[in-house]
């Protein structure tokens, strides 16, 4: 006779998160999603202004080797009052560098609740979900939710020299 295998008590897995502020609002991001944290001052030398910005939330670009990172102003992205950003999160596996006000603390979450279905607009792209921390609820941002594929294409097109840009536009023009 085979006995049922004893039930093992499953330890709760936790995820390290960084709590950060933008215009006074608290957000969380998985620390695994953050490749680098830089001060705005230390990044100033590597950042270039986008000559004719195509979206308000992205005004600077940072060259990292052969890769261009777009600096997204988090306050503008979330529609919060503008604040002087002090830190930049370089987000792993994205082309986003996120301008934020500051880091609150490091913490760990054991549960991530999906955003309730009542939230049915852009916020579904912005957040991975919500987590309860110290009797408070904090949205956990989605690192890939700051720039959509369409926005990235628009930004890339705006970075091309004028001749290439018009050639690219001609290539994508539909035949009459």
């Amino acid at each position, binding site marked *: 006779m085979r006995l049922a295998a004893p039930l093992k008590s499953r330890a709760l*897995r936790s995820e390290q998160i960084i709590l950060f502020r933008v215009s006074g609002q608290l957000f969380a991001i998985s620390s695994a999603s953050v490749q680098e944290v830089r001060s705005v001052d230390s990044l100033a030398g590597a950042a270039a202004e986008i000559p004719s910005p195509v979206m308000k939330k992205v005004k600077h670009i940072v060259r990292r080797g052969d890769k261009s990172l777009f600096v997204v102003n988090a306050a503008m992205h979330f529609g919060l009052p503008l604040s002087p950003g002090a830190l930049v999160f370089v987000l792993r596996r994205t082309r986003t560098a996120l301008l934020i006000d500051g880091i609150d603390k490091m913490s760990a979450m054991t549960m991530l*609740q*999906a955003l309730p*279905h*009542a939230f049915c607009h852009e916020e579904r792209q912005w957040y991975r979900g919500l987590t309860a921390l110290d009797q408070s609820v904090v949205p956990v941002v989605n690192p890939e939710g700051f720039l959509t594929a369409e926005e990235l294409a628009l930004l890339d097109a705006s970075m091309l020299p004028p001749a290439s840009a018009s050639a690219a536009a001609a290539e994508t023009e539909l035949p009459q």
Partner: protein
Amino acid sequence: MTRANELDLQSFVLLRLGERRFALSAGQIAELVAPSRIFRFPHRTPKIEGVILRRGRIVPVCDVAEQLIGKSLTSRRFYLIAVRHYAQQTEWVALPVTGECELIHSEMTDASTSDAPYVAGWISHNGEVIEVLNTDALTPGPSGESLLGSHRATLEARP
């Protein structure tokens, strides 16, 4: 009242929004709670104020007063926590109300095509004709198709 009449009666919770009363099927009500702290964060969905924590669940707070009485609530006495259906799933949604709620039994007349989508029917109570609300139509939610790819309600954090 005869037994046949009793069987036709359904239970409703009467809620007050300003000067008006509305009804919800009692089966749709999870609980009535005192207002607690609302946690707000940026989003773009109209009518959703934020979320509350209730019994370990994160519950969205939806102010439906603007839609029902034409103005937002300046004060609130309770949150009526109602069940909202999203395709095959159900979730709680907290509706702020301004007065006491009352459980009554009444017979419902179904809504007609001329009624607003959020009206499930009508009941008569103490000489007053009261709209029975359909929370699925009253509160925001994604279209059916977008629900198919939605995540589970609660996810364990990744390691």
